[in-house]
């Protein structure tokens, strides 16, 4: 004798249909969202890793914004120093002209006045501000760093400090963003304001013009040395920008790998799931419409 089977097949059939419908729904959801992980429970590990890549992407965005801001500031500083270099070039040629022994005292004083004009322009450059803060003030950015001061040997007084700031430009990497104003304009090994002031004094008195000229020369080369920092920093910004863009592409790819749906596969799974659903429905319909023995018993 064969074993008796469960005569009530309805729960099994209904369960099969539900399972088939669930499969269709899963694939439909993946197609609609483009993601294979729609609930944390779909893949908890991928969802947790997604948290980190999302944070990294968002940080990456911020680093790129930082770099753009930084670039503006560095360019402002670089172009101010470029102007300063031109002023110094003028000062050198004017000084050379003033050193000509054939000049009258009045001519020399006229030249001295020209240098004073350069001095004023230099002061304005040293007080360059970018978006409301002084860029050659060290970290004392809200106080005007250079003030004209006739009691000082250099003719100016420095109210900034020699502190520098650094900004993070990528995960674990930061760069220095400024050089103290005193290091650029009143540096011991080439003091721009002192040199210009000495040149004015020499031109006015007619004594020590050559010495003053070579002082201006030293200050000029000191200035070009300091300017290199900003040139390098701008290069560094560009390098970091392209690094961050590449990183962004990688992170996006990682995210897709973690939670993205493979559309080709999902579409294939969906048609399979639909077939499964149809099969379950058709089987159920056929089984439920099977006659019982009762239909054949003639009373």
């Amino acid at each position, binding site marked *: 004798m064969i074993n008796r089977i*469960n005569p009530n097949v309805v729960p099994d059939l209904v369960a099969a249909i539900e399972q088939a419908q669930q499969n269709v729904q899963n694939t439909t959801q993946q197609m609609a969202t483009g993601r294979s992980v729609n609930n944390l429970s779909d893949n908890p590990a991928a969802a947790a890793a997604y*948290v980190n890549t999302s944070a990294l992407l968002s940080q990456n965005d911020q680093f790129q914004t930082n770099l753009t801001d930084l670039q503006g500031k560095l360019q402002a500083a670089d172009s101010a120093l470029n102007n300063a270099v031109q002023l110094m070039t003028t000062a050198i040629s004017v000084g050379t002209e003033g050193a000509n022994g054939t000049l009258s005292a009045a001519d020399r004083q006229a030249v001295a006045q020209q240098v004073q004009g350069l001095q004023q322009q230099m002061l304005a450059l040293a007080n360059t501000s970018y978006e409301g803060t002084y860029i050659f003030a060290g970290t004392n950015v809200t106080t005007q760093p250079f003030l004209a001061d006739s009691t000082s040997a250099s003719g100016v007084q420095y109210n900034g400090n020699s502190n520098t700031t650094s900004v993070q430009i990528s995960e674990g990497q930061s760069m220095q963003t400024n050089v103290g104003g005193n290091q650029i304009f009143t540096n011991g090994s080439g003091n721009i304001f002192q040199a210009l002031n000495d040149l004015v004094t020499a031109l006015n008195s007619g004594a020590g013009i050559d010495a003053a000229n070579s002082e201006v020369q030293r200050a000029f080369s000191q200035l070009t040395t300091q300017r290199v920092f900003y040139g390098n920093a701008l290069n560094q910004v560009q390098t970091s920008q392209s690094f961050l863009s590449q990183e962004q592409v990688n992170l996006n790819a990682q995210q897709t790998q973690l939670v993205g749906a493979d559309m080709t596969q999902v579409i294939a799974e969906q048609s399979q799931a639909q077939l499964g659903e149809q099969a379950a429905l058709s089987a159920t319909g056929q089984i439920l419409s099977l006659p019982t023995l009762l239909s054949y018993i003639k009373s």
Partner: protein
Amino acid sequence: MGTLSSALNIAVQSMLAEQTALDTTSNNIANANTPGYSRQTVSFTEAPPIEYGGQLYGNGVQISQIASQRNTVLQMRLDQETQQQGSYNSFLSTMQQVQTLFNETSGTGLQSSITAFFNSLQQLSTDPSNVNLRQAVLTSAQSMAQNFSGTSASLTSIQKSVDSTVVQSVSQIDSLTSQIAHLNGQISGAESIGQNAGSLIDQRTQLVNQLSGLIDVSEIDGGNGNLTLTTTSGSPLVVGKNSYQLTAQADPTTGFEHVYSLGNNDITSSISGGSLGGALQARDVAIPSVLSQLDAIASNLESSFNSANQAGFDLNGNPGGNFFVNPPAGGTGAAAAMSVAITDPSRIAASLDGSTGDNANITAMLNIQNQPIVGGQTPLGAYSNLVFKAGNDVSSAQSEQQGAAATIQQLQDQIGSVSGVSINEESANLVQYEQAYQAAAQVASVIATLTATTINMVNGAH
């Protein structure tokens, strides 16, 4: 030696027996779709023979018993699986709500607000004296704090809605156990006078299965209506005719309902199965663990930022104070209470040297995101662990639930193969009993004719 009247007697007895069988068949067909019904079968046996003149004569048929076809072992296994399934179902319906709070892949959760806060500091580091950027830091800090407290509030409200089901479950359990105890009495009463208690046992089996959906149950069937039910940890629910009510009572500190058994025993933490078990597991274990992880992240972020802000100088050159309102001691409730202490953007202590353009202290604050401040993990690392846990709680319960559902389906098939009513089988029986009944009736009619013939024969002799 047989007589006509004994033959008629046998025929009538046979008709009665077939009628009983037809009744049973009819009852089986009537209950083909009744949940919990176990098909009944009749056993025909020969009636004790009669001895007459040294000969044994067959004395017809009788119904020895009408028996319900059931397998108690399978039913007990079904009850156990039902406890598991009930527990996973209620646990899942709660924890699925919890996981949506952290559904990072669709953009909800805390990651973006934590990162936005650090990013605003990152932005401020490029221009530390900029008041707009300082304000942006405060705004993002506030929205992060709101996100923490909002998430914590959502978790608590999920927890409360689970809690509100406890009282209801307890009263359902009590109602079921008293019905079961009552049926125990009826069954032992019926069986003591030899009645068929099949349909009462069917009812009781149904109720025990319903009870298994609510709470973990251990069954000891002593027979004769002596079914004893206890929780798996041994608290009595039903002993024979007596049921022992569970009571729910709110805990004065937490406000959550606790479950007490006979003798005012708090059995809350030992309830392991059924929807009550799953609800308690979610309310007392899973959600508190998520909440405490959230609190740990919040409180450590707050204290680290407070120390960092205190180490620097604000825009006016004054030493920094608390950035966030100090978290509660021990951290419990930190996420719910998270809020920013600073309202004046100049109070952010960005500077270490006291000058307005220094950002060195922001660097120190930014470093917090890479420091193992939350139980050896970075804030975001701890958060992504929380995300994993919230997802994993659901996914592992889901696979357990699927396993239990498959087992239940299998057990129900097995039980159905023993107890289920097959229309085909009943139809065949119907025809068989009908034919036997007709045959017996025919026999009776023939004997009646014979009796008449005999009577006429006697009459003719006059």
